[in-house]
């Protein structure tokens, strides 16, 4: 794998990459990509493309709302609150 591509991928995933990690990780990622290459060799011409192997029917939910009973518990996980707002460093 191209080292520049590895850095780009890490940046997109917001992962900090130490130079020392580049070599070993680069090798591992190359191995994974190579496996996809192998899968690409299989002929799928006769198959209908799908993203799911077994769900053939629509899965739909009726439009009804339920009280959000976990809202307060979720908010409690936040390190910094102002009233019910979650506070974060300014990102603008």
């Amino acid at each position: 794998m191209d080292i520049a591509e590895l850095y780009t991928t890490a940046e997109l995933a917001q992962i900090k990459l130490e130079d020392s990690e580049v070599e070993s990780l680069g090798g591992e990622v190359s191995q994974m990509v190579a496996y996809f290459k192998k899968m690409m060799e299989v002929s799928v011409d006769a198959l209908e493309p799908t993203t799911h192997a077994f769900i053939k029917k629509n899965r739909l939910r009726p439009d009804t709302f339920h009280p959000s009973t976990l809202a307060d518990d979720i908010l409690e996980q936040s390190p910094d609150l102002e009233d019910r707002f979650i506070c974060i460093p300014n990102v603008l």
Partner: protein
Amino acid sequence: MRYPTKYDSFVGLEIHVQLTTESKIFCGCRNRFGDEPNTNVCPVCMGLPGSLPSLNQEAMSKAYLVAKALHCDLADTCLFERKNYFYPDLPKNYQISQFAKPLGTNGWIDIVVDGVTKRVRIHECHLEEDAGKMIHAGDMSLVDYNRTGTPLLEIVTEPDLNLGEEAEILIHELRRIVRYLGVSDGNMDEGSMRCDANVSVNTKGAGLGRKVEVKNLNSSRFVRLSLNYEIDRQTEILEDGGTVVQETRLWNENRDQTIVMRSKENANDYRYFPEPDLPPFRTTPEFLADLETRIVELPLDRRVRLVSTLGISQTQAEVIGEEKANADYFEKVLEYGADGPTVATWMTGDVQKLLNRTGQSAAESPLTPERFAELLTLMAEGKIHGKIAKTILELVFEKNKNPRVIMAEQGLEQMNDSGELAKLVSQVLVDNPVAVEQIKAGDTKPMGFLMGQVMKASGGRAEPGMVQKMLKEHLG
């Protein structure tokens, strides 16, 4: 556009429409504007580990309905994908959206620009989840996730528009469409409709130029202003022999100009991939049949029909056709046999004034379509004339009774008994000898005064035509 013979300008819009549903698109949290921050949140829309999305069928129906109204090809299979990016208003670090297989493609919308119909192609419509809301306060930002995961329909047009004014008209027309369909309130102030645009300018006949994106357009007025600003800015650059930089700019409403938005180099690499937690959606015959029952005559078609078949003016059609409920009300009055132009004149005039005063819509006011028609019938039958009709109209609002009943109770029926009228006329002539002398001497000016005196003596009920005739007989 400053040099219309030298350059072409192209504008495309990406319009986001919030769909009105009870619950969010992938979870059962309430979809409602204005609640206390972070009250409508759950593990699914907050992206907590182990939670799974499940698709709201009503969101799907409403999204397909808009695509149908915009004459799109409806996908028989559409797919949700993950759009990956990091921003604090997006708790999962990806937005569930549609990419390779959107639900609608290849549509169009007609708009009317200076009386001429212009067809703007729709590239696609796709359904996605909305992000949360952030308030920037100094070195802090405050996040509210109530809006996270609410259903959002994105409508992308081809760059078929040429000026800011056209973009503004398109937004207004789309707003009417989504309101007619009952899928969104289309309220830009509350963010239910939001807009991004792309603009390019090029030498005449050379096709699209380098595209600049303009963001942060939260009113239709800003859309017009920012696009025209941007067209002029790009034209000036070309005129000076320069090249337009492909970039994203923000509309700054305080400075009335667009400014460059700094963006990271890789920011647009969203690495879309199919959402493994949601199977593809396939339309069924029942689903499509349901859409047929929900589709309505579109606002522009309706305005055109009101003008061409009912003979009302373009302006009246615009006022009456703005909201579906009003147009329905109007046509309901006509079903009781009233005449289109007369109803339109009253509806956009005196009735509208009263509605403004009471803050009601026509449909919820005491003036039912049946009463409206009855009032006009009383006039047509010669039982009342215009001024009394206005009085009765006000009393309908006040007393919530039928016009005929009010006319009888208040003794407002027109006086057209010639014997009674003759008495009134004679009395007025006796009481005003000076005016009578003047008229006899050849000065007809006091005629109007005498007329007024007779009307006054009859409590406004005398039939004006008869009074005039009698006065002339006496003085002619």
